[in-house]
């Protein structure tokens, strides 16, 4: 009966459940840095309890991170959250206030930037304006005193990889922004660094070009097995490109995990809201025979197990696309009234008012696949979700006992 319980959705849910279990196992009571050390074997980069203070301002609190060889890790966060600081600490542009940085098991904390052998792509491209495209891409090879035939071969290869061979004689000022960024990428590829850092590389490009470049970067990264650390404040970009995403705010990594882990199992309200729309229901934890629930005025909403005990105030988080919609009342489902319904191509977006209890109503957002037999919602429907699709996190604020208005967060 429900509108989106088809095969692919089921498979995805199973996959998520597995990922979650793996995630939970990794979390058992080790301090985070030990966990990161545990993954150390195949790692390309290890950031070990690194912090950065500017006088009284802490740009980055003690942070540990390990990045595997060939991994694509994104640092995602709002402006001022410490993304660039972390990246600049890794490349050696700034010195940490504490901690160590290891690249390929080599402690580079005190090593100069030009000895670390990294590649970097800047948001403003940082192309040398007095050199043509070929000279720009040759630069790192000339620094390394490569023979001129070797330089030509490698530069042709790198420019070919970004499809810019035909512009090799142009000055940076005479090519477009997208082309400049591709030159910058070629320049980072040409000396084959194992680790490339990219600081909001697509920030200055328009939307179509961004999508193009995202695909391009991802393809090169995969083909050549390069480790990339990619900074962005664009959630979609982070989720679509990354093997793992680290969400930063206020100079801390708030959560790190695969895109689906962080999207479907946020560990904080901040992460839940930052990654997109989330339905958040506030109540108290209440276990039952079926598993963990969140109790809202006696109504038990199902959730996957979390680090909370009965009676703890909690927020239950469900993504709009995980909500199952039904035309008939079902056990455990909640009644709701359509407020707004918009078809967005293959999906339908519904805003509705959910009656959580006699006294409490709350606005919810639902996104579901558009079907030919999709009835027009008039008035009432019922909704629920699979237990494993809902996450509970500790509530910072006590939920209001009973009222029409919602806790103001």
């Amino acid at each position, binding site marked *: 009966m429900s509108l989106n319980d088809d095969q692919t959705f089921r498979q995805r849910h199973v996959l998520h459940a597995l990922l979650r279990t793996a995630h939970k196992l990794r979390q058992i009571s080790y301090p985070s840095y030990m966990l990161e050390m545990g993954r150390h074997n195949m790692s390309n980069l290890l950031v070990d309890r690194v912090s950065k203070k500017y006088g009284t301002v802490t740009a980055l609190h003690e942070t540990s991170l390990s990045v595997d060889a060939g991994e694509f890790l994104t640092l995602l966060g709002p402006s001022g959250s410490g993304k660039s600081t972390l990246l600049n600490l890794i490349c050696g542009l700034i010195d940490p206030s504490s901690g160590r940085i290891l690249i390929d098991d080599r402690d580079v904390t005190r090593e100069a930037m030009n000895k670390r052998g990294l590649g*970097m792509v800047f948001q403003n491209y940082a192309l040398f304006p007095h050199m043509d495209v070929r000279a720009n891409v040759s630069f790192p090879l000339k620094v390394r005193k490569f023979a001129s035939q070797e330089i030509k071969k490698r530069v042709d290869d790198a420019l070919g990889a970004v499809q810019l061979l035909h512009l090799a004689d142009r000055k940076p000022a005479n090519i477009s922004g997208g082309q400049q960024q591709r030159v910058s990428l070629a320049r980072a590829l040409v000396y084959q660094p194992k680790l490339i850092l990219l600081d909001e590389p697509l920030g200055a490009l328009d939307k179509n070009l961004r999508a193009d470049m995202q695909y391009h970067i991802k393809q090169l990264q995969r083909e050549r097995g390069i480790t990339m650390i990619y900074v962005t404040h664009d959630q979609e970009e982070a989720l679509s490109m990354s093997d793992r995403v680290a969400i930063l705010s206020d100079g801390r990594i708030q959560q790190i995990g695969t895109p689906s882990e962080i999207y479907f199992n946020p560990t904080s309200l901040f992460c839940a809201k930052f990654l997109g729309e989330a339905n958040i229901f506030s109540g108290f934890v209440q276990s039952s025979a079926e598993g963990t629930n969140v109790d809202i005025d006696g109504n038990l909403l199902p959730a996957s197990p979390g680090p909370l005990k009965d009676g703890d105030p909690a927020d239950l988080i469900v993504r709009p696309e995980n909500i199952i919609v039904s035309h008939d009342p079902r056990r455990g489902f909640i009644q709701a009234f359509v407020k707004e319904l918009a078809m967005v191509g293959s999906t339908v977006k519904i805003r509705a008012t959910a009656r959580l209890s006699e006294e409490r109503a709350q606005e919810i957002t639902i996104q579901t696949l558009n079907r030919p037999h999709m009835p027009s919602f008039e008035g009432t429907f019922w909704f629920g979700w699979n237990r494993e699709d809902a996450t509970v996190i500790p509530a910072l604020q006590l939920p209001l006992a009973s009222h029409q208005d919602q806790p103001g967060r």
Partner: protein
Amino acid sequence: MSTKLFKASWTTTLFSWSVLAFLLLPTLIVIPLSFGDPVELVFPPPVWSVRIYNQLWADAAWLNSATLSLRIGLASTVLATCIAVPAAYGLYRSSSAIRQLVYGLFMTPAVVPVVVLALGIYLYFVRIGLVGREVGLVVAHAVYAFPFVFAAVLSGMKDVDQNLERAAHVMGASHFYAFIHIVLPLLARSITAGALFAFLMSFDETVIAYFLASTEMTTLPVRMFQSVRWDSTPILAAVSTLLTVLSFAICMVAGIGLARKSKPS
């Protein structure tokens, strides 16, 4: 704002040209004089000739002064530039609290009256035995011209994005390599303009050169100054003309260079 304010009426045009003429004519009057009578300076010249120039080419003392001025100008320009470029680069990239103070100190030779500067240098050079020696005048003129190169390079640093240097470092370049291959080429125009001005400063400089002069070491402006006082030879007009043309040429080249730098393509 009304465009009328900016539209030059014929009265303002006339006024501007009059001011320019007032400023330039006394300078330009030497040009016709230099093509006149080689015995006595009379305006307007009764006959036209290049005989004064022929006299100049034949006069060893004047030619010695000219080559001396040229030598000192070149040497002091090179010295001033070699010090000013790293100084401006370092100061621009520095975040030190005393940045402004250092900037002020570096600019003093351009701010202090030349006579005071000349006296100071003279008294000091007397003690260390540099008066009357070429190397002394080179150093003195380098000090005198330094602020002009320094200021030109400092303003040029605005166009040298620090990210370019960072990019070079990440790609393996040492600070020195990046300075030579990235910073210097981007500063080339500013350095050239600054150096041209520095050369002109030294070549035209009279007061310091007069203080430090000896009979073997008389620069062109000092010889002109002496000549005006003692013999007022017509050769003065020829030398003045040549100096004026040279100064104009250098100012034009430097000015065009700076103007083009401020408007990147």
